[in-house]
């Protein structure tokens, strides 16, 4: 589904990613861990096509196509979804409008028809229940005045409605209370599907108790320094990044 080879990227002229190789198969869940500033969000943003993030070397193929030539909205319509580490507030645009526009863009791209108002509302209500959000959030401006945890849930709500093929979740579990963490896990597990893949950036082994990853990678200084299965996360939890960082730098 996603094939990243020797990816180098700069942000504002500063090199952040220094040769990333990563293969994500259909239906797989990959966890990406690593110290602060190691480039996890940069990778997520490069995949989503954020302007200003320049790829200087390497390639990214998604479903056999060159991903890097596509505009962010084209990537989204092909099924890539980024749940932001820091979702932005957009005063003046209602949540429900964004949900509708995003869903219809995805549906049209998949060759489906746009949903009418009734069906749309029915779907939204069902998904709201899944992520345990109150209906009033639909009518508020996107993320405006939302608490940290509410913003994360809102990302999850969007994901649950859009039903992407590749979901990149950048610390969706950070800043969540334990109940909310279970909500996120239920949301993701509910969407798991042989045709859908997840790349989850996280700092906490805790999340991986609920969402069991197929692979765990450790990103250090812009490279994947170590990969393994779920036991790697447990190991890191005990020992920290010290040894891996030393090895990567040494």
């Amino acid at each position, binding site marked *: 589904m996603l094939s990243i080879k020797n990816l180098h990227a700069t942000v504002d002229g500063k090199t952040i990613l220094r040769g990333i190789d990563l293969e994500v198969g259909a239906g797989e869940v990959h966890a990406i861990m690593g110290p602060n500033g190691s480039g996890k969000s940069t990778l997520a943003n490069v995949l989503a096509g954020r302007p200003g993030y320049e790829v200087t070397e390497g390639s990214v193929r998604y479903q056999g196509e060159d991903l890097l030539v596509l505009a962010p909205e084209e990537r*989204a319509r092909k099924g890539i979804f980024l749940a932001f580490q820091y979702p932005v507030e957009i005063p003046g645009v209602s949540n429900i409008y964004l949900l509708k526009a995003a869903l219809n863009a995805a549906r049209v791209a998949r060759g489906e028809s746009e949903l009418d108002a009734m069906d749309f509302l029915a779907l939204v209500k069902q998904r709201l229940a899944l992520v345990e959000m109150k209906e009033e959030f639909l009518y508020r401006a996107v993320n405006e005045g939302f608490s940290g945890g509410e913003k994360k849930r809102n990302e999850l709500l969007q994901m649950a409605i859009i039903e992407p093929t590749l979901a990149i979740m950048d610390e969706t579990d950070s800043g969540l209370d334990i109940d909310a963490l279970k909500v996120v896990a239920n949301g993701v597990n509910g969407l798991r599907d042989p045709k859908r893949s997840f790349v989850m950036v996280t700092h906490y082994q805790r999340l991986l108790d609920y969402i069991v990853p197929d692979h765990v990678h450790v990103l250090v200084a812009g490279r994947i320094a170590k990969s393994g299965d779920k036991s790697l996360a447990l190991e890191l939890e005990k020992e920290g990044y010290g040894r891996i960082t030393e090895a990567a730098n040494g």
Partner: protein
Amino acid sequence: MNGTQRLYLDAYESTAGRQPAWLDALRSDAVERFRKAGFPTLRDEDWKYTNTSPIEKAGFAPAGAPGAGVRSRDLDEQAFRGLDALRATLVDGFFVSELAALDELPEGVRVCSLATALVEHAELLRAHLGPLPEGSHGYRALNAAFASDGVFVQVDDGVQLERPLHLMIAASGPGSGQTHQPRNLVLLGAGARATLIEHFVSLADEAYLLNLHTDVHMAEGSRLEHYRLQQHNLKAFHIDGLDVRLAADAVYTGHAVDLGGRLVRHELKASLDAPGAEAHLNGLYLTSGRQHVDHFTHVDHNAPGAVSREFYKGILDGRSRAVFHGRIVVHPDAQKTDSAQENKNLLLSRDAEVDTKPQLEIYADDVKCSHGATVGQIDMDSLFYLRSRGIDEKMARDLLTWAFANDVLARIGLRPIRDALERILGAALLHGHASTEVEPGQ
């Protein structure tokens, strides 16, 4: 003295001596003031960013009568869907009775032409149409020298005018002269309430100058909801002064929306003369091409415990230009003043320009005064966020622009006006995407 100044002075001569003696005396003082002051120039501190020489160059002759041939039907097109309103109409600065719908005025409310009021309420007008303030600029003086008509509104103590008054200020086109100089007077008694919609429209695609002055006097505890929707054609010039005086606990709420005009200057002075007075001033200007819109606001906190809020937003495209000048003076005994001012501008093009200048003069020590001004482009993080949800770049930009304006519309209480503005702004900013889909909190 230039030719245009002479043109006005000559025109004045032909109208002198027609009014009651007290008014003629005021007019002749005003014309003297105009003779001395001439037109403002960029050298005048208060006109630093607004060059009115195109108006001078145009040399518009003063209108002597309303243009003929304006029918009710022409104005019905400008009415607000779903708004049950009284109507008064000025054509080329003159009150036209045939174009008014004022039959059902409640007891205690008078709406008529200023000309009529000068006859029927001479003493009242004499008390309220005072001499020109010290240092008045040429346009203000010119208005005072020429004004013989306009609209007069009076709401007695304790009376509520339930239906809004829709005041059309229309330009008819060529033929009757092109400087329109109405003078409007609004008097609200103690505890009176009213909603006034001032609506500037052009019935033809001709250039003209509207040089308007309005005085609003608000007695204790009165409330005025004042909408000013400016939809001149893109050749029109607009200069207006609005003086609002507020007694104790009077609340003035103004919404100024500028969509048209080539060169527009609004001067607003709110005098908070007694405790508990509140002035809420909201504004939205949308400019493109070579349009120029200037808001010159002056809030005088003359008494303790009064509140003022200013919230002005602008969206500028093309080579257009906007000016916001926010002067707030807190006088020595105006303790516990609560004042906030905000001016935000969104630039859609590289060639658009904004000059925004807060000017706070605070002579009391126990006050709360805040101000902020921003000039910026579309927020890149928001843009990326929307695009990452599959919304294409063009649509995402439109949406964020709309959202920026929507913030001001959300403050508009009168639903039909808000709906109309949503339609207009939706057409202008959303390029076909329905605004009802966009608006939060339905």
